[in-house]
């Protein structure tokens, strides 16, 4: 073999054999000797099947090599898993190619790559993936169990906590009714306070349950006419307090894809809030519309009421968090938490801006595409 060709064979970092047309080794590079701990004497001039105590005598390799020698075909990426005497179990990837020497004699280049580590890495990656899958499945099952537990808890809260409240309220009422003559004004006042406290707690329990139910109800995805929903809520608010002067400015053609029931609940709370926090004003305006926010269409509900201090924005959407006293504006602090849950279940975002005495604006997005 010419020096040029020899130096190419030597330069290749993977073990490389040069075979003649009879599959006898003409040349092996030093990577081959190093990898298989063989010497030139026991390699060159021997049939490839005899090398290393016959460790390459693998039927599939034999068939392929003979095909290469006979037809000049080639093969690539032949993976051989084999227990090599000096190396142990290895995965070798073989490529073979027929070249014809200048003098017309055929030569076969057989390149051998030790892919054991690569294969092991792949195997462990697959194992890791399987483990991860198992773990995700386990965690999901745990979460589902926790969720079921929570539902059972909510159920028993609904049933069990309300019962003693009914007793408190009922017997206080009976005291006020049948024993009023035995109680002075102050005593009656305390009983009334007791009743309003129990009724408020009943309302809190109901709100808490509504909040938990929002996460459990199945959600539909259908076109929803938000303009019509908002107009309905506005009419209801006017009907409830006909003496108030509140102008609703509701943009026409507001539509979204989502659950009409849930979105109705969200609008009831947003408009109800706007209605409540403008109650100290002689006349007020509540605007419902749509504007683009960072290229995404966002809906908004704006009022010119009491507003809030942006310093407390982090508390705004938290359940049972309030920025006003009961005396100023009554409520349980559940409304905006409900709005946030509804919007999040639709895969959207909700945020607010406002300032004290300058009104508040609530924005929300409702992505059109399917989201979980």
């Amino acid at each position, binding site marked *: 073999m010419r020096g040029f060709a020899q130096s190419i064979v030597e330069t290749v970092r993977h073990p490389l054999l040069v075979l003649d047309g009879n599959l006898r080794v003409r040349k092996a590079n030093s990577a081959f000797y190093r990898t298989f701990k063989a010497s030139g004497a026991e390699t060159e001039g021997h049939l490839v099947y005899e090398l290393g105590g016959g460790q390459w005598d693998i039927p599939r390799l034999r068939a392929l090599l003979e095909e290469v020698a006979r037809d000049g075909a080639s093969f690539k990426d032949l993976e051989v898993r084999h227990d090599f005497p000096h190396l142990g179990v290895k995965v070798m990837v073989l490529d073979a190619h027929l070249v014809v020497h200048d003098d017309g004699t055929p030569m076969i280049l057989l390149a051998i790559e030790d892919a054991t580590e690569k294969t092991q890495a792949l195997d462990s990656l697959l194992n890791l993936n399987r483990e991860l899958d198992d773990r995700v499945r386990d965690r999901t099952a745990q979460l589902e169990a926790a969720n079921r537990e929570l539902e059972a808890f909510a159920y028993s809260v609904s049933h069990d906590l*309300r019962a003693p409240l*009914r*007793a408190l309220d009922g*017997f206080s009422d009976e005291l006020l009714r049948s024993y009023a003559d035995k109680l002075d004004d102050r005593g009656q006042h305390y009983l009334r306070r007791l009743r309003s406290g129990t009724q408020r707690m*009943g309302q809190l329990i109901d709100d808490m349950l509504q909040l938990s139910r929002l996460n459990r109800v199945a959600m539909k995805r259908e076109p929803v006419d938000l303009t019509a929903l908002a107009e309905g809520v506005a009419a209801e608010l006017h009907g409830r307090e006909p003496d108030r002067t509140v102008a609703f400015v509701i943009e026409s053609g507001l539509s979204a894809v989502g659950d009409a029931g849930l979105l109705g609940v969200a609008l009831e709370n947003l408009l109800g809030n706007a209605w409540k926090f403008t109650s100290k004003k002689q006349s007020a305006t509540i605007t419902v519309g749509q504007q683009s926010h960072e290229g995404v269409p966002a809906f908004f509900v704006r009022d010119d009421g009491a507003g809030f201090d942006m310093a407390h924005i982090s508390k705004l959407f938290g359940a049972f968090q309030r920025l006003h006293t009961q005396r100023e504006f009554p409520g349980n602090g559940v409304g905006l938490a409900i709005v946030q849950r509804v919007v999040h279940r639709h895969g959207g975002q909700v945020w607010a801006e406002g300032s004290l005495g300058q009104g508040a604006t609530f924005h929300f997005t409702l992505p059109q595409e399917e989201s979980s």
Partner: protein
Amino acid sequence: MSDKIILLVEDNEDDEELAVLAFERSRIANAMVVVRDGQEALDYFFGTEANGGKDAKAMPQLVLLDLKLPKVGGLEVLKRLRADPKTRRLPVVVLTSSKEEEDMLTSYDLGANSYVRKPVDFTRFAEAIQQLQMYWLVLNEAPASGGDRP
């Protein structure tokens, strides 16, 4: 005093007393019988096994049934009442704390005539009781018996 009987199936003493109070406030006085768990309710209608069912009591005109009951639950009681010809048409009003939609749907599926959630506000509870009494014992035309004559 009307001879019509209301059977209250209620395990909570407070709720029992409140229901009695609410009935007392209404103008129409009916005899109210209270049983305190689901088994007692079934024994009331069908008698005890020990006596071969011979100690079944007088048929009420209205049953107020709580759902969460010891021993035999309210829904099971309802199922058994609807399965027996004697009590198949008996007006049964589910009176419960539960606002779970599923409880309500199951109650109606099993043949409840009404589903009323006990409010915390006693004034409203008393009103609800009076309306129930007025509707089921005065306005409503009940069949001659709770069910077919045997």
